[in-house]
């Protein structure tokens, strides 16, 4: 999983970016071994949180990008212009980071690390990798508790046309969701439209579904919603394939690899070490097979990364 591929980089205290090559795509930025920022097209980044929410005019953001992009100073440009405070920017940065990490951290994807790559927004609050992982797990639990079926996140939000009760209380965010639900938009589309973080909108929609205020409709048509649905279906297919594969021991190595297509990760400029075969024997332990099947693809890069870091340390 992606969070495991991040471990050696964070442990080594390097600065750079882990770029995800498979869909949905995204980048995790690491500064001195701490997670500084993460982004993916399916989550709301700092730009969306600032402009689509109406907090900043889009022109002001564009001006800051023009002025500060090359020097990685978009954030300081905004702060110097008095448009946002550093505290506000940092808070939005953490929200955007958690939002992207929610979608990215449990993916089994090909990724490759770019040394010294930095995000153009500039310095934001950095977090410990473990803190981010704990937060991602907490968010998964919260969503599952509110409404167990994840298909609701990519399905059109249908507010009930008529309620059985006499009175209903909504939070401001729930109101925004209901007022902007056009019976086609999914929670992911609504978050983008409103400039809210995707997790919070998904959570509020699930909570409203639980109280019977909205119901999931047909799967949403937008590219972002489709991308999330596809990635999730593939992850689920990977788990099922593993389950059937482990039922027939001895030939389970091949079917596991199939449901996760995509190019193998290539560490640039370094020769690929041999994949140690004894690893395969470990995977046959019955109690750990589901967990390890998911990590199959990352085992290889992780080892390469650990070796690379050992090599770099020696230099």
């Amino acid at each position, binding site marked *: 999983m992606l969070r495991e591929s991040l471990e050696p980089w964070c442990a080594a205290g390097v600065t750079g970016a882990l770029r995800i090559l498979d869909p949905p795509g995204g980048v995790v930025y690491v500064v001195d071994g701490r997670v500084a920022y993460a982004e993916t097209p399916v989550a709301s980044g700092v730009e969306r949180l600032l402009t689509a929410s109406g907090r900043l005019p889009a022109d002001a953001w564009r001006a800051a990008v023009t002025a500060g992009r090359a020097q990685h100073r978009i954030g300081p440009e905004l702060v110097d212009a008095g448009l946002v405070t550093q505290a506000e920017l940092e808070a939005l940065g953490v929200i955007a980071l958690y939002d992207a990490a929610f979608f990215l951290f449990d993916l089994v994807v090909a990724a490759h690390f770019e040394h010294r790559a930095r995000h153009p927004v500039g310095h934001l609050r950095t977090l410990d990798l473990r803190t981010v992982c704990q937060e991602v797990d907490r968010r998964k639990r919260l969503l599952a508790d509110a409404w167990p079926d994840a298909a609701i996140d990519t399905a059109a939000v249908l507010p009930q046309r008529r309620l059985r009760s006499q009175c209903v*209380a909504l939070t401001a965010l729930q109101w925004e969701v209901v007022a902007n639900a056009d019976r086609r938009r999914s929670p992911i589309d609504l978050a983008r439209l409103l400039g809210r973080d995707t997790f919070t909108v998904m959570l509020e929609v699930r909570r409203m579904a639980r109280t019977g205020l909205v119901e999931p409709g047909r799967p949403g048509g937008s590219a972002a919603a489709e991308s999330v649905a596809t990635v999730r279906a593939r992850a689920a297919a990977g788990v099922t394939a593993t389950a059937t594969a482990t039922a027939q021991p001895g030939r389970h190595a091949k079917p596991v690899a199939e449901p996760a297509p995509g190019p193998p990760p290539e560490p640039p400029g370094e020769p690929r070490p041999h994949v140690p075969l004894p690893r395969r024997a470990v995977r046959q332990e019955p109690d750990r097979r589901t967990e390890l099947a998911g990590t199959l693809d990352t085992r290889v890069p992780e080892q390469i990364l650990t070796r690379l870091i050992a090599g770099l340390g020696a230099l």
Partner: protein
Amino acid sequence: MFFRGAAVLDIDDCLHRLMALQGVHGASLIDYPSGSVIGAAGRGPGSRDDTPADAVGMIHATMQTAAFATVGQPAHVEDIVITAGNGYHVMRLLASDVEARMVLYVWLDRAVGNLVMAQRQLSVIASQFSAN
């Protein structure tokens, strides 16, 4: 502007200022819709995991109680104070232009802490948190 000198205020500054209060045990900045901790200093009451969830639950309850929320501006709650055996718990809602999603939380010692000073400091930080 009166506070112009302290314009570059980051989250650590906010937390340091709160931790400088008399009798403070811990302070944190919580994103209230998602229940995520954006930054924390000092310690929280009980296990660390539960504090933001409890604070968020408290704010939810207050906001949904019409009698508290509709005095003055519609649904305008400034802060929530809980006086408990283990101290004062103050939750200050930050009102930004568009949305009020951040909450500053301070846990004060009951014997040594000064509730009014804490509320005053929270107001000052709240006014500087978002650029107008």
